[in-house]
């Protein structure tokens, strides 16, 4: 990245982040080697995947979990912890 393109260019003093939760739009999907896939027919809506996601990439809706693939880093905790195999893993296309 060139110096003119740096996000803090031109800021004097302590930079202040004004928008809470602004990291949500940062794409961490490129970190993934495998992606989680949710199968709603096997899901018992136990909320385990939603609670244990370290990056809050699994959002909860009344119909069950939805996976936000922009934030998901592919740690596969949800796949490992799902008691009914409703989460499976799939290789990312390289």
């Amino acid at each position, binding site marked *: 990245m060139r110096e003119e393109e740096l996000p803090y260019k031109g800021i004097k003093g302590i930079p202040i*982040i004004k928008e*809470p*939760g*602004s*990291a949500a739009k940062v794409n961490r999907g490129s*970190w993934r080697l495998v992606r989680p896939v949710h199968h709603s027919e096997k899901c018992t809506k*136990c909320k385990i995947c939603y609670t244990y996601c*370290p990056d809050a990439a699994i959002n909860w809706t009344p119909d069950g979990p939805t996976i936000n693939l922009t934030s998901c880093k592919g740690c596969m*905790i949800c*796949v490992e912890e799902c008691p009914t195999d409703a989460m499976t893993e799939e290789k990312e296309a390289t």
Partner: protein
Amino acid sequence: MQQFKTLKDLPEQDYFTGGSSACAGCGPSMGLKLALKVLGPETIIVNASGCMTLLPLYPNTPLKASWIHNAIENASSTAAGARHGLDMLGNKDMNVVVYAGDGATYDIGLASLSAVAAKNERIIYICYNNQSFGNTGFQWSTATPYGSETKTTPRGKNNPTGTTAVNKDMVKIMGAHRVYAATASLAYPVDFLNKLSRAKERDGFSYIELLGACTAGWNYDPRLTIRISKLAVRCGMWPMYEIENGILTLNKDFSELKPIDEFLKLQGRYRALPQDGVDRLQVLINEHWAELKEYNGQRYV
């Protein structure tokens, strides 16, 4: 006081978003996400330098609560200052929470932590314990358990054990300050959030120590974060208890502990620990567990 019984009772609002620069499967970042569910947006998080300092990187932050970062030794003093400032403004609802690693708690920040605890300031101190100085590359801290390999205590011909020192019993030290001190685990989020909501209601200092499994330092597959956290509790490596006014309560009581092997074999930091090291670690764990069982419900410190 909010009390939760199952995972389904936990609050659905999140004040933590993805997109941070934490490792995939990071335990401490999961702990912060869970903590903010109970603490809510009206929280000032005071952070001592460590891995979690890198969550808000300008111009992005995954947090929807205020965040102060300061030097590794004075997070508690900063929090006490923030609390006094809020008191002068007449603000009683704001939570002041310290989120610091074990290096900042056990070693470098112990003086300021002890002073603030002795004054019984209304602060919640959460220590995410990854049993090392994780951010700088997994060096030995006084929280590192016996037998673990770190960058500064490597295994070699002369020292096959790695860490030969026994880790500090920090919860007991904090319990001796006559405050609320408890241990928590990521594998038992309901228990962790119940302890937090109890700490939130208390008019005094609370210390909660969370075992934050560290995928890079402990050297395991990120998908095992929860399984390893659970095994740490089941094997007695991380017993779940709380001390209030010197009285000990064991939260998760097991008639028999699992052998420590099950916890060790999943992690790279214990690879090549000789059998006599495993036996010694098992003895240390059994002694601690027997002590907790003996003093359960009684005055401990």
